[in-house]
């Protein structure tokens, strides 16, 4: 029995060594950037370990000491707050988000929002795309019922499952769909309806700062920026 346990422990250690190699760079990534990240992660030489969530949740986790090397936020305020409190350095814009309305029935447009609908938005208090969605609804004076999701990923899911009539999501999420899904249509929300979604990244202090710097350099390269724009950003 003991021998068997030893062998198990040894093989687990071996597995860890083969999979591990170099310590992966630990990234806190805003949910909206998932598909773009998948497109570009292969071009970076080091192994990456992303954790996804709303910018608010990830920010709270960093403040609480969850170890991350890089924070790719969906907003400017939270990375800046980390810089001000000495928890992060080198703030930089890595993407500019575009808001889109995805609907299950009818033609997506500003007029679609005049109906009695139930529309999912990311939590405006923690997710920048939710804040932009709220600004858009207020600007249009739309009286739809707002279903609040944890983040854009859940807002997208609420619409795709058919449970909500539509959802405000990141254009990047729609671009990432393998093919247009039958009854859905989408509308790219005009930029003047919401404050720009500048997505800022920072190097989190106390981790692998050299690796983090290298990743931010990689994100700023022309090729990477072109791939990010192709993924649904501006």
């Amino acid at each position, binding site marked *: 029995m003991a021998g068997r346990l030893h062998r198990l422990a040894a093989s687990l250690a071996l597995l860890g060594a083969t999979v591990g190699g170099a310590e992966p760079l630990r990234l806190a990534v805003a949910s909206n950037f998932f598909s773009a990240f998948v497109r570009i992660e292969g071009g970076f030489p080091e192994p990456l370990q992303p954790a996804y969530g*709303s910018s608010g949740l990830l920010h*709270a986790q960093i403040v609480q000491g969850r170890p991350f090397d890089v924070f790719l936020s969906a907003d400017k305020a939270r990375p800046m707050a980390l810089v001000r409190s000495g928890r992060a350095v080198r703030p930089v814009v890595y993407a500019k988000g575009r808001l889109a309305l995805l609907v299950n029935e009818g033609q997506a447009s500003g007029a679609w929002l005049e109906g009695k609908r139930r529309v*999912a938005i990311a939590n405006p*208090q*923690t997710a920048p795309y939710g804040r932009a969605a709220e600004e858009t609804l207020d600007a249009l004076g739309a009286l739809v019922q707002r279903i609040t999701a944890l983040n854009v990923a859940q807002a997208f899911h*609420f619409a795709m*499952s*058919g*449970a909500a009539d539509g959802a405000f999501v990141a254009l990047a999420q729609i671009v990432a769909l393998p093919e247009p899904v039958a009854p859905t249509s989408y509308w790219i929300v005009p930029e003047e309806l919401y404050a720009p979604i500048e997505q800022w990244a920072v190097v989190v202090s106390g981790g692998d700062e050299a690796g983090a710097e290298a990743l931010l350099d990689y994100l700023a390269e022309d090729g990477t920026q072109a791939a990010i724009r192709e993924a649904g950003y501006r």
Partner: protein
Amino acid sequence: MGIAADIAEAAWVTGLLALVTTAILLLVSPPLAWWMARTASKWRAPVEAVVALPLVLPPTVLGFYLLLAFAPSGPLGAVSHGLLGVPLAFTFTGLVIGSAIYSLPFVTGPLASAFRAMDWQLLEAAASLGASRSGRFLRLVLPLNRRALIAAGVLGFAHTVGEFGIVLMIGGNIPGETRVLSIALFDRVEMLDYGGAHLIAGSLLAFSLIVLTATYRWLRL
């Protein structure tokens, strides 16, 4: 809305949800538990397994399937939406359905155990004196097991108050409708409002501890 009002509203929704769910479960569970305790049917084991599923499944599994079922094209949503014109997803009614399924084993389980431990000779005596089946159940079985009934109700209520995963999946965080205390707490933490978070978390902790202590003391378990 102020933080206090927001939390008070969430507390109201939570209490109402737990109350309605417990009332439904106290109607459904006694006959179901009685059947589970007495039957020799080959369906007993599968039915008990289905009832017990929420004990072992992650609430997110139930929440995922419920959301699909609640969609207008889903089996439950088609009936509710099509026939009654009421949506289920992101509504209080939807939460009641989810909570009833989620808390079912916490009410049915203790009742079935109590029923199994009953003195069968009493029932036979009542039957020989001419008491009908429903008469025996209502006038003998339920009064004899009133402690178990109350304990089951308290557990069902407390468990519903403690719900998070399902509400997260099907609730939609609508103030006054589906924003319960556990969700309000999650929001506060994400906003780094630890004052509000402490208020909610501390109250839930105190509530659960008091309810369980009272139940255990009273039952002398």
